[in-house]
């Protein structure tokens, strides 16, 4: 009996401990129930000042260099009018990116006294819709796929930033293309659904510079030169390309990037835009031709490391690794600039690896650049949230991130000198000089296609379970009816 009583006693103590733990957690940091910014219905001026979560840095931090934006709330914020307020942010970046984001807004937080509370989630795409539908949205959310934001904008959940921002400043600090891409159809007419905060370039072909130079391969300037080089490498006994499209539930997306690159290089921008809007079907000759150009490289076992099975079964992040073995097993890898974080540790940009621009195919379409990026959208309308959104329209909001690497700035006032990484500076420069810039088409398409049938169709085609015509028809079939 005694033993049993103590046994019963144990869970009781545990329960009390755990509840105490929960209670303590609540008092040490702002508990969710009292976090003022969480309830959109609450008054804009919360009474409780948030505890600083980060210890202020004792080192000298230069003041935020933002001036002349003509943005009313931002100027007020910099004057300290909104000190003590909290702005919640929600986005998909976690780990190192989260640290870099927090560091990049630290100066702004210090100067204005606005506390930007960022939470990252691997399940951002699903969670944001649930939270918005349930009436519990964050103040600002970071969308890596404009298509998803488009759905929310159409439902009238997103605040039109053009209603309060200084449009002269926006036109001055963004290329028109970025502003166009931020304009989406709202519940009644077009709205500016957010501001572009970061982007990454996709039209890079990475190569192992050291081995490349030793082997004496040239940098191809045209598609034909690139195909000749591919054949040359095959003749030398290696496969030229490292390609992998496995990515869990998103398997197939690197293939869609290739399609978009080739589309931009083989047909007009007008056709590309029509294609992303669903007006040019996948079964059209333009799209089919792009797939065939891709097939010439992808389906040739002498050109691709691991062949077709290798493409489908290799994790996209692991696919460039054979490039850095000694000697390399494959020599070229087309991917966005974020791929460098997957490269083996200790490799130096410009020494061990470098990139060249994926060459044009048809000279009449010039040198287009494919990009993807993150747009920040606003869900609650309070002056301090406006101020933070206005801050994100300045290059200064990214300065620390650019220096630390891992982001490119879409802002005109971001200097190329700010980049800490030569490779990223080169990408940014190339995008600035590109004849045209287009956004990742699959991210623009509705998610049924852009994050569904397009991925799946390409994967099926590469795996060999369906032929090209069937695959393209299947992709078209998933397009939502208007």
């Amino acid at each position, binding site marked *: 009996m005694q033993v049993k009583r103590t046994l019963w006693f144990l869970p009781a103590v545990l329960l009390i401990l755990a509840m105490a733990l929960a209670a303590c957690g609540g008092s040490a940091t702002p508990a*969710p129930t009292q976090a003022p910014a969480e309830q959109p219905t609450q008054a804009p001026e919360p009474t409780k000042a948030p505890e600083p979560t980060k210890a202020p840095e004792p080192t000298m931090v230069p003041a935020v260099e933002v001036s002349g934006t003509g943005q009313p709330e931002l100027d007020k914020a910099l004057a300290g009018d909104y000190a003590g307020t909290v702005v919640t942010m929600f986005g998909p970046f976690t780990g190192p990116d989260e640290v870099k984001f927090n560091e990049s807004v630290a100066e702004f937080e210090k100067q204005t006294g606005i506390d930007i509370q960022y939470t990252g989630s691997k399940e951002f795409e699903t969670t944001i819709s649930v939270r918005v539908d349930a009436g519990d949205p964050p103040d600002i959310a970071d969308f890596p796929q404009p298509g998803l934001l488009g759905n929310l904008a159409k439902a009238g959940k997103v605040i039109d930033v053009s209603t309060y921002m200084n449009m002269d400043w926006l036109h001055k600090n963004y290329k028109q293309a970025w502003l166009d891409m931020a304009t989406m159809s709202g519940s009644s007419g077009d709205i500016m659904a957010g501001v572009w905060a970061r982007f990454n370039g996709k039209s890079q072909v990475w190569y192992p510079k050291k081995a490349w130079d030793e082997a004496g391969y040239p940098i191809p300037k045209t598609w034909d030169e690139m195909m000749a080089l591919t054949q040359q490498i095959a003749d030398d006994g290696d496969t030229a390309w490292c390609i992998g499209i496995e990515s869990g539930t998103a398997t197939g997306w690197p293939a869609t990037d290739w399609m978009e690159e080739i589309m931009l290089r083989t047909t007009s921008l007008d056709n590309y835009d029509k294609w992303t809007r669903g007006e040019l079907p996948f079964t059209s000759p333009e799209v089919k031709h792009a797939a065939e150009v891709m097939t010439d490289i992808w389906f040739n076992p002498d050109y691709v490391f691991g062949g077709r099975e290798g493409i489908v079964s290799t994790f996209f992040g692991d696919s460039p690794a054979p490039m850095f073995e000694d000697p390399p097993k494959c020599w070229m890898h087309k991917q966005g600039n974020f791929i460098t974080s997957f490269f083996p540790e200790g490799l130096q940009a410009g020494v061990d690896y470098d990139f060249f621009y994926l060459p044009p195919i048809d000279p009449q379409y010039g040198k287009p650049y494919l990009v993807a990026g993150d747009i920040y959208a606003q869900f609650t309308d309070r002056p301090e949230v406006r101020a933070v959104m206005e801050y994100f329209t300045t290059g200064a909001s990214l300065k620390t991130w650019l220096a630390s690497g891992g982001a490119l700035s879409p802002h005109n006032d971001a200097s190329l000198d700010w980049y800490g990484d030569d490779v990223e500076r080169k990408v940014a420069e190339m995008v600035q000089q590109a004849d045209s810039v287009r956004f990742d088409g699959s991210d623009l398409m509705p998610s049924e296609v852009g994050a569904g049938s397009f991925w799946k169709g390409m994967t099926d085609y590469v795996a060999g379970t369906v032929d090209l015509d069937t695959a393209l028809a299947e992709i078209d079939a998933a397009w939502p009816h208007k």
Partner: protein
Amino acid sequence: MSVKIGSTRRQRRTSSLLVNSVLILLVLIWSIPTFGLLVSSFRTKEDIQSSGWWKMLPHREWVQVEEFKTKDLDPNSVMTIEGVSGTFKEFRAGVESPDGTRVRWVGNKRRGRIQVEKRQWTMRDDFTLENYNEVLLGGSVNIKRADGTVKAVHGEDLSDAFLNSLAVSVPATIIPILIAAFAAYGFAWMKFPGRRALFILVIAMLVVPLQIALVPILRDYVKLDLNGTFLAVWLAHTGFGLALATYLLFNYISSLPRDILESAFIDGASHFTIFIRLILPLSVPALASFAIFQFLWVWNDYLVALIFIGEKKEVKVLTMRLADLVGSRGSDWHLLTAGAFVSMILPLAVFFGLQRYFVRGLLAGSVKG
């Protein structure tokens, strides 16, 4: 007679041998991947990518003994290297010589080298604790300040998430058991109208998948301002776990000998006294085994926590932190190996702590006596 006994004994021995070997096979099938994961958790990302974990065990492999440049060789014709001859393609695959060595051309025609290899016993022993270090203490990120200084900023460590998981799991285990024990006693030993109908209703709840309740409950929580609190997830887990708990405990409690309870009644004990002094102590095995089930379920739960607690740092549970470990684009997948073992520690401790009740409890309700 004696012959017959002997043959039954032999029969018994062969059948137990069969059973044992099947069991051993099953145990191996289950534990080998786990062991591989454990080995991988001590390896660097590059090692995991380039070779299997079993290379850590002693095995025979071609090991390079000599290497030289490919000068004076024409890869476009038949070559003779180290006494063996072949074409470029053959040398790329490796040409074996009669004395047991293998000559291999590594690399392409332009940047090749010749490797002479011998088959040897070998094992890799380059283990690292770096994965655990990064999981437990958070990886460090170099931040370059505008003034040119570089600062190493540490990511979050695991301790907050671990405590949060504990703060979720323990109440979410104990609350449903307590309520279910009361309910099971009521259904088993108290007579009231509609008892049967109520019980059937509770059992019917077993077949309702919790996923369909997520959005309605979330809406209510938002209205009640409960979303994102521990209370929200305690209540959710309590609700989801209650049906099974009631059913399991009912089966056990209803099978307790009637005589004990009747004598208690005759001595004037109330229902509450009987429950506290008799039922609870007697059903410890059933309670403990359900506690293991519920604890493991809540500890490993991702979905319910994701919906009702969310990702805020103050309340984020371990499973969500683990998912975040891989980074925005999944570049740190190798950390999951170490993360998995860290998150396994507590469930293992709970299991081994309560396991002597486990077998007894599993039989709860299934063998009525």
